[in-house]
């Protein structure tokens, strides 16, 4: 009986995560119009206070990319920052009123480091999602 309760609890938790991610995707997609083509991958992760996410990605020359970021973590603003691999700051949405999306136009191919975190150490843990796509 105890095992069934544990399994049921885990199932419900898992279903809750599913619906949270689905909801986030809908929110992110608002700022991702149809003329942007996804790279075929979905980027999401759970984020707790005092944590940040970091990853590298390559943006090709003569392309415009859109980054659309969203979170369901409460009491905090989502910050996404783009550096080059030498850690020169290229862009942060913090300087632009925490805009949930921005377009990055590349004149040359550049590998970038993208950092995502939530401003406010007291925020409620939640999921963070990013949609990245190039302009058709």
């Amino acid at each position, binding site marked *: 009986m105890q*095992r069934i309760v544990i*399994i049921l609890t*885990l*199932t*419900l938790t*898992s*279903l809750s995560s599913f*619906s*949270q991610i*689905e*909801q986030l995707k809908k929110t992110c997609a608002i700022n991702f119009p*149809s003329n942007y*083509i*996804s*790279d*075929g*991958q*979905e*980027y*999401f*992760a*759970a*984020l707790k206070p*005092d*944590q*940040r*996410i*970091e*990853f*590298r*990605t*390559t*943006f*090709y020359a003569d*392309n*415009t990319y859109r980054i659309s970021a969203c979170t*369901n973590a*409460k009491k905090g603003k989502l910050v996404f920052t783009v550096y*080059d*691999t*030498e850690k*020169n700051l*290229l862009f942060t949405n913090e300087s*632009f009123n925490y805009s949930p*999306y*921005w*377009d*990055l*136009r*590349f*004149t*040359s*191919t*550049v*590998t970038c480091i993208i950092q995502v*975190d939530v401003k406010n*150490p007291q925020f409620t843990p*939640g999921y963070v999602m990013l949609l990245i*796509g190039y302009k*058709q």
Partner: protein
Amino acid sequence: MIEPVKMNLKLPKLIIAITALGIIVVSCKSSPKKESETSQSAADTLSTLVKVENAIFPIPSPWQVVNLIQKNNIPFKESCINSSTNFQRYTTSFKQAINLGIYGTDLSYLNIYDKTQESLQYLGVIKKLSEQLRITESFDEKIFERIEKNIENKDSLIKIISETYANSDLYLKRNERYDISALIVAGCWVESLYIMTQVAQEHNNREIINRIGEQKHPLDNLVELLTPFYYKSTEFANLLDSLIDLAYEFDGIIYSYSYREPLVDEANKVITIRSQSRVVMSEYHLKIISKKIEQIRSSLTE
């Protein structure tokens, strides 16, 4: 706002979900670690860096690669794509997943060159492989109907294909089938590099040769994406070993980079990144990378 749990599953699905979860809990199967924390670097921020394995190792879109080939007015090369009849050979989930990625890139390549009949054929193969892999939630009937309706419209089709692959990626990750998700991404990447090298050797096009050289970081990401599954099977170990071997060849390519301050267009929410990078790739490196990716691709499609 966090959505309330929606209990809209039909009973059989719920039973399957509970049974599947039960098997996972009872068997205590070791799954790849999802989060690993490293302590913060000095003088950085106060936050801890979270490296999310299996989730954030982006690989640039294969659709962009095939676009570049067509933009350079290079004719379509049929021998570059995996024959649609080969799919019957793929009986393991490893081969089915990796070839689902390979056929995805092939479909984009066919579509960009207006190969409507062949595109429909490849679409059928993709449908069958997705059924065998049980990812029909993303590759459902409606998607195939949408694709068939838009088969003549290149731009719409690329959009639908990329959306479908993104949805299946999300579906697989939500269901913790990270290995399958990673293999599809790997298949897309391997095929796009294979097509590029085949074209570059024949046409010696500088833009395409540079794009090949620019695959160093995407390959590093791909290796990281696949690493947690190294011990899952010999097939995984062999693939990873061969990709690591390929990555060594990329180390011989010369890269230069110079930072320039970006230009911001706040009204349109656009920033122009003006930093410049350069790739210097020798004929030797093009040859050896072409040879190695051909061997890898052949082992995956045979």
